[in-house]
């Protein structure tokens, strides 16, 4: 569960990206974050996994109050939040399997559990047959699915995606959306920032529109609401 109360974020350069946001997101929800470029969507997302600290206000994620979180507790917050980006961020020298296993190895998961779990998530995202490939040998959509596999391999309660289909064509994007739906249906909260009108309108999920750092609209079963 995610709770934000009167949250403000001003960057050191003086830009106020979040200008008073309060919101509740329940476990298991699927939420789109939409809004014009520079509206504060990415900042909103970064506040949740403590990539950025709010200037003011309270943020509670998975029952952890982020303002009271000590530096060395941040890693444990992040183990409960998977994150994927537009640019995948796969390690080019590792295979798909190794990229996914990496996320478990660095949190010191016992090695005997790793193989089984990695194959499981590669199956969920449909990449079991590409386990030994290098990221450079995959299509954009496959790379994004590998990144999603890495994000969910530790069974996070929340999956955050910042424009995950930003670099993909519409057809490939729909495959990614199917993957995200599957993950959501198993109880994982999904937050996805996007500029894709067709995706948002097709899925009929909750839509939070951010404009100039505030929530301009928050609708269950909403629409994209902007002209492209």
């Amino acid at each position, binding site marked *: 569960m995610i709770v934000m109360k009167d949250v403000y974020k001003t960057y050191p350069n003086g830009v106020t990206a979040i200008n008073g946001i309060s919101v509740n997101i329940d476990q298991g929800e699927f939420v789109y974050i939409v809004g014009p470029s520079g509206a504060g969507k990415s900042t909103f997302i970064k506040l949740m996994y403590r990539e950025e600290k709010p200037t003011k206000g309270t943020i509670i994620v998975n029952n952890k109050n982020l303002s009271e979180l000590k530096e060395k507790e941040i890693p444990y917050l*992040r183990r409960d939040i998977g994150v994927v980006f537009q640019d995948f*961020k796969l390690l080019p020298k590792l295979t798909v399997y190794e990229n996914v296993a990496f*996320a478990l190895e*660095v949190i*010191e998961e016992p090695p005997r559990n790793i193989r089984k779990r990695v194959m499981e998530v590669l199956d969920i995202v449909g990449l079991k047959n590409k386990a030994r490939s290098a990221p450079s040998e995959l299509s954009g959509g496959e790379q994004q699915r590998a990144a999603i596999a890495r994000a969910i391999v530790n069974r996070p309660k929340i999956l955050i995606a910042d424009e995950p289909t930003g670099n993909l064509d519409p057809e490939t994007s729909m495959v990614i959306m199917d993957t995200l739906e599957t993950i959501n249906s198993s109880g994982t909260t999904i937050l996805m920032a996007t500029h894709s009108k067709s995706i948002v309108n097709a899925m009929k999920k909750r839509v939070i529109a951010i404009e100039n750092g505030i929530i301009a609209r928050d609708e269950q079963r909403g629409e994209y609401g902007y002209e492209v």
Partner: protein
Amino acid sequence: MKFNTLLRHLRAGFRNIIRNGWMTVASIGAVTTTLILVAAFLALMLNLNEMAKNIEDDVQINTLIELTATDEDVKTLGDEINAIDGIEKVTFSSKDDELKKLIDSMGDEGEAWQLMEQDNPLNHVFIVEAENPQDTEQIAKQIETLNHVEKVVYGQGVIDQLFKFNNYARVIGLILIFALVFTAIFLISNTIKITIIARSEEIGIMKLVGATNWFIRWPFLIEGLLLGVFGSILPVAVILAGYNYLESSIMNSISFSFVEILPFHPFAWQLSALVLSIGALIGVWGSVMSIRKFLKV
């Protein structure tokens, strides 16, 4: 730390060292040069100290008593000397004893001097030893002012020279060593910095998926430690082989047979352990510097 994690960090540390190629060579070279000099300096200083101590042990003040002094005067003088602070021992040596010592010290040639036994020109002597050899000079000056003292003879110069030389060598050596140690630390921290930058992508993902700060830092600490330890291998070999050679050549040499150096066992081993620890410390310090500056976790 779990065993698996330790293995992983060690592997990562080794991999970094191999990937950094010439920077690794330069860092190890700097540590090696530094430690060889540190070892030579320490071996020299510690041995000089030891020798100084041995020479100091022999330091005596010979107080020559005026020929005109009566037995009563000699007794008073002895009491007065004994009353001076910092005196370890006062022994009376009559002029006959002194002549005997002189004759003995001359070996065969001394025979001729035996003629003098009838008409001994030497003085009675008080042999004084200071508790603390560095006080020798000051005690000798006090004795000089006493009545019936003809002359005070002691090894001034020698002690002073040895102490002075020791101090200069110590200061110059320390400055040199500090400069070298800092160069080595700087080179290592630079090497680690390069590793951190080269692996920034990987570090970013580690943070994202929830690796702890220490998990991220360890490979860099290990890389620094390994650079320091690898840099100590040659110096330790030089100490063990060199000191062994030095010791045996001094022992077998006639002209240096009076020189006593600290024995190989345990000195060379202690020195090796010390040099290895300094190497490890240089390495860890270098990596800590870079981790603090470039690894924002």
